[in-house]
């Protein structure tokens, strides 16, 4: 799973701890999500999306190669246009 968390955070000049404070999680968790070591749960993913005022699919999208799973590839194709729209806003 890929995400734009670092980019969006940097645009707001927030540190990882600032984001963690807003979501009531540890800074370690934000770091792990940003670096792709951890895919957040759906509730946390929705909280992150709400924090940045974006739809969840603009913040997270599957790896382009998927995991050898056809469903992922379909998801990636569907998500990319939304993501582009989100980046432009």
């Amino acid at each position, binding site marked *: 799973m890929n995400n734009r968390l670092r980019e969006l955070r940097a645009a707001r000049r927030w540190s*990882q701890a600032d984001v963690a404070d807003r979501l009531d999680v540890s800074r370690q968790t934000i770091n792990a999500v940003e670096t792709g070591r951890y895919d*957040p749960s759906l509730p946390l993913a929705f909280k992150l999306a709400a924090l940045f005022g974006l739809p969840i699919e603009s913040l997270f999208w599957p790896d382009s190669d998927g995991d050898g799973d056809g469903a992922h590839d379909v998801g990636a194709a569907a998500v990319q246009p939304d993501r582009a729209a989100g980046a432009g806003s």
Partner: protein
Amino acid sequence: MAVPVSDNPKRQSQSDRRRARANRRGMLPAIVAGVADTAVLSAVNPDAHANAWNLIWWLSPAAFVLWVMLAGAAGFRRADEYQQRVQLESMAAGFLVAMLVALVFLLLAAAQIHTSTAGPWVFAGGAVAWGGTLTFKSLRTR
């Protein structure tokens, strides 16, 4: 709630500090009481065969270990989702190593090579693997 923006990128979040405080409050009394009990027990060295109370006193450190474990479980519930996952993975690594060490001693016993110190090695192997994995995974996301 207004959340300030910090200049220090490596600072802990407010929830980190709140959890750390709660964990200290839960753990410290158990550790201090357990160490004090063990120290007094070692100094007095009561005869466990003399009466039932002395035997209970000898077993009392186990109660403090249980207290520490319960405080640890409360800390686990307090942790957020990523920290819980890291702790579970670390415990799994510790369990795996403990089982492997136990298996080694079992095979040695099957080969008629008798060793009398399996317990401490199983405990040490599990604890080192648990702590090592937890430290490694925590350092990666510092």
